[in-house]
């Protein structure tokens, strides 16, 4: 091979004075970086992904991992990554796949939005002392309410209300399928959402029997492959989500490789053992907005109009008119997945270059729905790169009803964002179907960690709202007056409908 090898991405070192030779690094590293030869632990740095499992498990802090130990000649245009991608494609002639979300160093709009707080002229509220209303209902809201008087003189509601999901906090866990991630990860998250009064998505992987006890907290997904979808599945979910697109790879489908289709995954997805699970790019029964209406109504009709139906789309250039179409399509919520959304595997060129940021998508969708007088017809759920309670508060202030988190929930389970989700070797037991790796997650403990994250963010959201003198999530929603842009250009501020800091 005239191309030779590219430099290793990481260099692993063991401080031999500190090392007590316990071998936990060898046991924990599923990438086989470490091996024992004689009385020495040897290292093969090239295999390292910087998942940091060994570092976390080393009792002596003896391990160091250095990124990019070998420099290329620096160049601002022909970066290391660009050069290595070319070498990879020169070897293979194929599409490059990658894991996790967009890894380009593009400006993050959330980080250039600042939240407001009260001083002197209006009092802030102490959430310790006063109730903070974070309860969020996801689903259609009536444009007006009609009441009637009963014979006994009581007043009762005449308007028929559409089914809504009741969330105790506006944080849900987004759709990551069983297959892409392990059963123990799913169980941990399902237990956590049950405890914290919120919901999680099943992803397009069907519903494993072990999750049935949490079904009233699960949003079942119907994607283009229709894997695991039958009437039983639809009836079990608290809500149903049609996945049209995904922020990490807008416009394309998904392929779960046969290697990941073990017995449990096969049963749950209802596909033969070891076969590729191919989700086509579009739903082949949806070629128009009218067809989308038909699928939504077929799902509602199947479940006797008892469940809200969501439609998830990737944030793309025309996201606002698309969402407005969805608002008129009998859907109860639209999920917008921004270009930073995560994935188990996506073509790198899509992950890094297709779609738009979630911040502008929320703002333009909310604006369009309000202009057209249909904002009440549909809830807006934002996802794709929500990293903290600050991102959550800013999303709601831009116009979202709630958010889906994905990567953040996985990080609370141990994920270190190494981006090798597709290899079925996840040393943290998350993106793997190997029992000995998956069992590294104890669902009871995992549930505590995920629930802690949701609780922590919820507390922070209450504090942020209190500081801004807001005691109800409804008063924060779409309240762009409580945001200011910092170092954002005029065009961006206009799209966001946010004033610059100081104004």
């Amino acid at each position: 091979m005239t191309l030779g090898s590219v430099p290793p991405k990481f260099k692993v070192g063991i401080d031999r004075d500190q090392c007590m030779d316990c071998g936990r690094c060898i046991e924990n590293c599923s990438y086989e970086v470490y091996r024992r030869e004689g009385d020495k632990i040897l290292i093969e740095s090239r295999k390292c992904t910087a998942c940091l499992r060994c570092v976390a498990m080393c009792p002596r802090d003896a391990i160091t991992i250095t990124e990019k130990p070998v420099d290329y000649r620096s160049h601002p245009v022909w970066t290391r990554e660009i050069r290595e991608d070319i070498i990879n494609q020169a070897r293979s002639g194929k599409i490059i796949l990658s894991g996790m979300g967009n890894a380009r160093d593009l400006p993050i709009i959330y980080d250039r939005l600042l939240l407001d707080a009260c001083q002197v002229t209006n009092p802030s509220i102490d959430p310790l002392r006063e109730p903070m209303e974070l309860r969020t209902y996801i689903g259609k809201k009536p444009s007006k309410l009609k009441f009637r008087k009963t014979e006994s003189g009581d007043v009762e509601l005449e308007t028929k209300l559409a089914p809504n999901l009741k969330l105790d906090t506006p944080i849900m866990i987004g759709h990551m399928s069983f297959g892409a991630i392990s059963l123990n990860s799913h169980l941990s998250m399902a237990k956590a959402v049950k405890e914290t009064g919120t919901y999680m998505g099943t992803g397009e992987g069907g519903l494993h029997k072990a999750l049935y006890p949490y079904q009233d907290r699960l949003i079942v997904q119907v994607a283009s492959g229709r894997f695991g979808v039958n009437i039983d599945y639809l009836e079990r979910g608290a809500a149903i989500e049609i996945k049209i697109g995904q922020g990490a790879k807008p416009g394309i489908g998904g392929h779960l490789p046969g290697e990941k289709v073990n017995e449990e995954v096969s049963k749950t997805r209802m596909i033969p053992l070891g076969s590729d699970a191919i989700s086509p790019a579009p739903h082949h029964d949806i070629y128009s907005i009218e067809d989308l209406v038909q699928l939504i109504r077929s799902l509602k009709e199947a479940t006797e109009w008892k469940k809200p139906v969501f439609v998830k789309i990737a944030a793309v250039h025309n996201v606002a008119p698309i969402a407005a179409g969805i608002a008129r399509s009998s859907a109860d919520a639209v999920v917008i997945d921004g270009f930073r959304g995560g994935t188990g595997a996506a073509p790198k060129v899509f992950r890094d270059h297709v779609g738009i940021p979630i911040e502008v998508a929320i703002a333009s969708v909310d604006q369009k729905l309000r202009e057209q007088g249909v904002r009440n017809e549909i809830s807006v759920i934002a996802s794709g790169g929500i990293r903290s309670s600050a991102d959550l508060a800013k999303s709601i202030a831009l116009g979202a009803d709630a958010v889906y988190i994905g990567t953040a929930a996985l990080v609370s389970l141990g994920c270190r964002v190494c981006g090798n989700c597709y290899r079925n070797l996840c040393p943290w037991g998350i993106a793997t179907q190997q029992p000995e790796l998956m069992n590294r997650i104890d669902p009871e403990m995992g549930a505590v960690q995920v629930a802690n994250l949701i609780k922590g963010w919820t507390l922070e959201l209450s504090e942020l709202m209190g500081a801004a003198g807001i005691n109800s999530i409804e008063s924060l929603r779409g309240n762009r007056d409580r945001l200011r842009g910092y170092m954002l250009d005029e065009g961006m501020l206009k799209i966001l409908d946010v004033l610059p800091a100081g104004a």
Partner: protein
Amino acid sequence: MKTLRIDAKGMHYTPLNQKIRAAVADGVEEITLDNVLGQRFIGDGLRGNVKIIINGVPGGDLGVFMSGPTCIIHGNAEHAPGNTMDKGMLVIHGSAGDAVAHSMRGGKVFVKNNIGYRGGIHMKQYEVEAKPVLVVGGTAHSFLGEYMAGGLVLVLGIGKEKSMTDRGIGSGIHGGEIIIRGEVDDYLLGVGAKKIEFTESDLERIAPVIKSFCEHFELDPTEFLDTNYTRIGPASSRPFANKYVWE
């Protein structure tokens, strides 16, 4: 046998399905729907062994998510009958629109005449009991059996000089089989599809399906019980396996 007749004239699909569900819950074994005209979703998500006789033209997504019942349609059917169906049967005494048997996992769809585009698209199978079958008496438009992952699509081409004249047959197929009466021109095959020899043992395997189809439409099965078929299957069970390289 407990039966029920419903006049569907001018009725919206929701109350119609509610009546059907209530009847099934009540133990009715045969329901006749008269004057059906475009009502969608008939039998949507319905379970059980009820037989539904539909007189008229049902709308889209007939039998979608259905799990068990049999529908006999005396008329044509619209878009996507048998969509994501799990179990049961649709017998259409006429033609049907696009995406017939879309994503069907089990059960049977028999169409006496022709079907539109993308028939049998993404049909899949799981274990022995869930193996979907789509039989078309006449012909089908383009992309028949596209993305097919399992099951059987059979086209008999009755009354046609050639059973299939539209392109894209089995494009992206990675499981299951498409069997077409007579010869099929090579240029009609989609990407990833290939012809496989149709043998006596294949005939033996599909003979019960042919006989059942003929019985429903009062045809003589003997003229179809020979090996004059073209069998089309996947060139690879991993059509995308060679497209990607990891980062």
